[in-house]
């Protein structure tokens, strides 16, 4: 007989949006520690999803279903986590930069980060540099994530980082960037802390940036 933790990882890998919250509830009913349900069940499953994706054994739509089922589980778990005083591995503020109306990629990275155990504050798309600055002040995140799909808008990432520097907040946060035209060299040039080439690697990067990987 497999444990609830093992079954949770399995249904996360399967991307079963219905079973995950039910199993989380069952775990809570049986008196399991909320943080254990997260760490030993949900996150173990998501880690395996990331590994399989990297090997080419899972496809993006499957990864997304896993992330979505992870979110459904977190819906149930979150109040108990907060009540028990457990901390998530970190907080991320994320947005598509000014001038760019595309947000699929950013949404995917966001989901994967939530799946990895982060708290996510999504600023949406076409986000002005000042908005990022305000959000850092308000939410005090560990990480700021920026995305752009167009070569014409990727420069706005640089301007945003500059605005964060000018506000004296640069050393308060790690900055990660991504999106189709972005690469590691560009990320370094504009002074970001890291670059993710796809959604799962974005989540991996986030974990590394907070020292959780």
């Amino acid at each position, binding site marked *: 007989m497999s444990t609830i933790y093992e079954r949770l990882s399995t249904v996360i890998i399967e991307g079963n949006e219905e079973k995950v919250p039910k199993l989380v509830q069952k775990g809570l009913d049986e008196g399991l520690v909320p943080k254990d349900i997260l760490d030993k069940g949900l996150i173990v499953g998501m880690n395996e999803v990331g590994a399989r994706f990297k090997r080419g054994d899972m496809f993006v739509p499957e990864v997304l279903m896993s992330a979505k089922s992870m979110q459904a589980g977190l819906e149930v778990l979150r109040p108990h986590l907060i009540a028990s005083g457990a901390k998530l591995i970190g907080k991320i503020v994320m947005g598509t930069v000014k001038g760019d109306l595309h947000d699929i990629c950013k949404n995917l990275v966001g989901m994967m980060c939530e799946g990895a155990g982060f708290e996510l504050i999504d600023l949406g798309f076409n986000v002005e540099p000042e908005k990022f600055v305000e959000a850092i002040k308000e939410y005090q995140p560990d990480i700021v994530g920026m995305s752009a799909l167009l070569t014409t808008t990727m420069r706005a990432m640089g301007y945003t980082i500059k605005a964060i520097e000018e506000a004296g907040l640069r050393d308060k946060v790690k900055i990660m960037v991504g999106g189709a035209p972005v*690469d590691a060299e560009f990320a370094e040039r504009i002074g970001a802390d890291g670059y993710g080439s796809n959604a799962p690697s974005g989540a991996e990067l986030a974990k590394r940036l907070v020292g959780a990987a």
Partner: protein
Amino acid sequence: MRTNYRVNSGVRFQMLSKDQLQELFEGVLHVLEYTGLDVHHDEARDILKKAGAWVDGLRVRIPSYLIKRSLEMAPRSFTVFARDGNPKHDIHIGPGRAHFGPGPTCPNFIDVETLERRPYVKDDVPIVAKMVDALPNIDFCESLGTVSDVHHELGATYEFAGMFPNTSKPIVAWSYSWDDSADIHKIAVAEAGGQEAFEKRPNYIHYCEPLSPLVSTFEAMDKLVFAARHRVPLIFTPCPLAGGTGPVTAAGMIIQAAAESWMGLTVAQAIQPGLPFIMGGVLSVLDMNSMILAYGAPELSLMMAGITELAHYVGLPVWQTGGCTDSKTLDEQAAIEGSLSCFFSALTAGDLCHDVGYTESAMTGSVFQLAMMDEAIGYSRRITRGIEVNEDTLAVDVIRNVGPNGHYLYEKHTHRYYKTEFWYPNLCDRRNFEEWSEMGRMTMRDRVVARVQDILASHQPSPIKPETEKVIREVLEAAEDRVKEEA
């Protein structure tokens, strides 16, 4: 419900018009009726005479009614079965179905360890058969070589004995003569469970090759008679060289090759009415600079498309050609020539496309070329599968659900189709630069070599019956005794 609704399933390709095909057809009938062929086989000439052909010394001319009757008797559709009963390895020959496999008899082979060219040896046979068995887009097996390290009359016997246990995909068996044809047949029949069981579920195809221009050699006819008597599906495929052993023009080549092939058809149907018969042959140009038969020439694909259309016009399956190259190594030329001929062959739905894995103008067999072409065939097959149009694939409701500025990645519709609507490569690289770089910056050639070595290290073909293993040992011993006695 739809009414008077026409569906085009897959991509359609048609080169010659009905009028042109009829003209080619009549050209073949004319050659057979008025010029005829030399048939170097007494019994075959007797059979032809009895059937209604005119025999004058070696020369045999066939009246057109007899050709038409023979065409009528040969089936357009039939099945060649996997020896182990695995339905995925059966080959259903019929309209719109293209199958692929290697060719026979190259003198050299690219060594799978050293990647160097050297003579083809007995131990290469299981390697080729295993690769065929594992590669998803390769459907039938030939050996890619002539075994050089056994008695010169036993190459084909050892070849079949090496292929049969290492793939359950149907084998196209090449041989020298009656004796080794009989060796091969004994092995296949043992696995099938007797001659009668074999006739119900044939597990290999017999391959014979007449000589161009217009000669049915003794060996080709003798092998044909053997196959027809034992009801083995038959390929009868000439290999004329345009401008050398065939007319320089494509239309003339098609006519001559068809005439050469249909001489075999007539004999085969006279012996065994309804015998599955696959017409050839390999049509390409004699390169007037290098004097080679060009296996990477565009005219090969073009002439093969022409003879495929003629074959289908008269209701016969065809022995197509593709996936081959004149290049000496696994390079860009090999990829261009091989891929384009695979794609063109797939478009024509030529029934059995062989010579996949030929390099150096058929002088060297290569499982690396074979593995690279497996990818090209998969790619081609995705295109020829076409676009399916129905209520569900139109996706009008899904488009409404998602609306402006949404995305389709969560849609059940996406999940239902993304694995079947899209083709996923095994060898072509689609990673971004960083990941490609991290994975060692492998080129296509590197990835092909890795895939071949991976398959050879891990693939396990389904085994043959223990009694067939015994029969193989007996057949090889008897064959060795036979050549000793002859000496």
